[in-house]
């Protein structure tokens, strides 16, 4: 799978992960403090922010695996930055990336419009919620509360990661710095060239 990847694409994912790693850490602290007052539901509103790197990288690079690899790298870099959540973050990153990847794989990496990006956010939400449900012991919560958490997370994934990710990349595209990546070679979010 990695054979078809250019080195500059992998390094790009890594550098994006560093930039977003800082953003992620910032939000983690906001979420942590908040969670002290309103419990685990505090993270759900801002959960989309943690999926954004996979959607941004896939939207730019458009190669199978871009979502999983970028989210995994982002998690690894977060661990390197001295994150107190630690090693299980890497596992969480792989699972979130797989969720986003599933949406792109379902279109066979042909469509990259805003709906698919939002679906990727939803996929990442569902996958990460399943993982969190198991590891966080959410089974002890009542069904209504769990469903509320899940729906807030899905909304957050679709809006922050899907629409927000697209907005960031479109802004970046207009700066002209993305020359030479798949996104500039294809028009209107269609097939990769």
């Amino acid at each position, binding site marked *: 799978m990695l054979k078809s990847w250019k080195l500059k694409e992998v390094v790009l994912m890594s550098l994006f992960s560093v930039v977003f790693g800082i953003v992620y850490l910032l939000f983690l602290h906001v979420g942590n403090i908040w*969670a002290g007052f309103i419990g685990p539901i505090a993270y759900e509103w801002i959960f989309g922010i943690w999926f954004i790197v996979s959607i941004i990288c896939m939207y730019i690079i458009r190669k199978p695996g871009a979502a999983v690899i970028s989210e995994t790298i982002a998690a690894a870099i977060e661990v390197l930055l001295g994150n107190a959540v630690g090693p299980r973050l890497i596992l969480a990153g792989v699972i979130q990336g797989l969720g986003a990847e599933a949406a792109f794989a379902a279109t066979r990496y042909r469509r990259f419009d805003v709906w698919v990006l939002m679906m990727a956010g939803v996929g990442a939400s569902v996958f990460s919620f399943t993982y969190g449900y198991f590891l966080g012991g959410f089974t*002890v919560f009542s069904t209504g509360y769990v469903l509320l958490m899940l729906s807030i997370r899905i909304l957050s994934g679709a809006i922050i990661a899907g629409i927000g990710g697209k907005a960031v990349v479109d802004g970046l595209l207009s700066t002209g710095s993305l020359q030479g990546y798949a996104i500039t070679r294809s028009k209107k979010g269609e097939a990769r060239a």
Partner: protein
Amino acid sequence: MKSALHNMNPAAKFIVITICMLTMAFFFNPWTPLLMWIGVLFIQLLFSRIDWKLWILFMIPFFIMAFGYFWTTLVFAEDKSGPVVLSIWSINITEIQLNHALSISFRVLAFSGLSLLFALTTNPVSFILSLMQQLKLSPKIAYSILVGYQFLPVLKDEFVQIQQAHRLRGAMQAKSVFHRLFHMRKILLPMLAGAVRKAERAAFAMEARGFTGEKRKSFYKVFSVCRLDGYLVSLFMLLLVVSCMSALYMN
């Protein structure tokens, strides 16, 4: 003795800690995570020379978080059966509810204890190198992660620079926290554009020096699994078994 955890193979440490966390997810009694947390504390006391001030500083947010989990579990519990042990303002709290709430919040503490053990005793660069040598992580990814890691101070400086440039031109008017979070977007774009350029340059430099990304046999810095790792892994496994078994005897 005091440096055993620092010298442990990072990949082995990573695996054993992940196993401990995943196993604990199956237990819904307060004793298993509590014993785990205390055990991890003792292991750190005996086999590491970490900065305990730093440890406490990192642990404070997790104590707050554990409290948040504690009361939400009490209020939104699924299983409300069993004898009532406590009642606050006409809200009855049953034994099962209390046990679940305690177990969830101790789980937060145990997870963070394990994570802090890893974070405070592991050198980030050796962790990635060890992942590449022991767990067959692709060198293309491993070295790219290290490149990103090395760029961190540069990006931090750039962040300050862009912020100052904005302030100089009077673009940074936002006072409230929410405005400031929204303002991040204006800083994010130039930083990402800079990151794209840096990535291209770094990749070009690596390729110019003969980096192909193929798997290699020999390394400049070699990491191996030795007897010390075996001892420490079995110590962790023993702790895991003891804390899981406690579920049977404590009830």
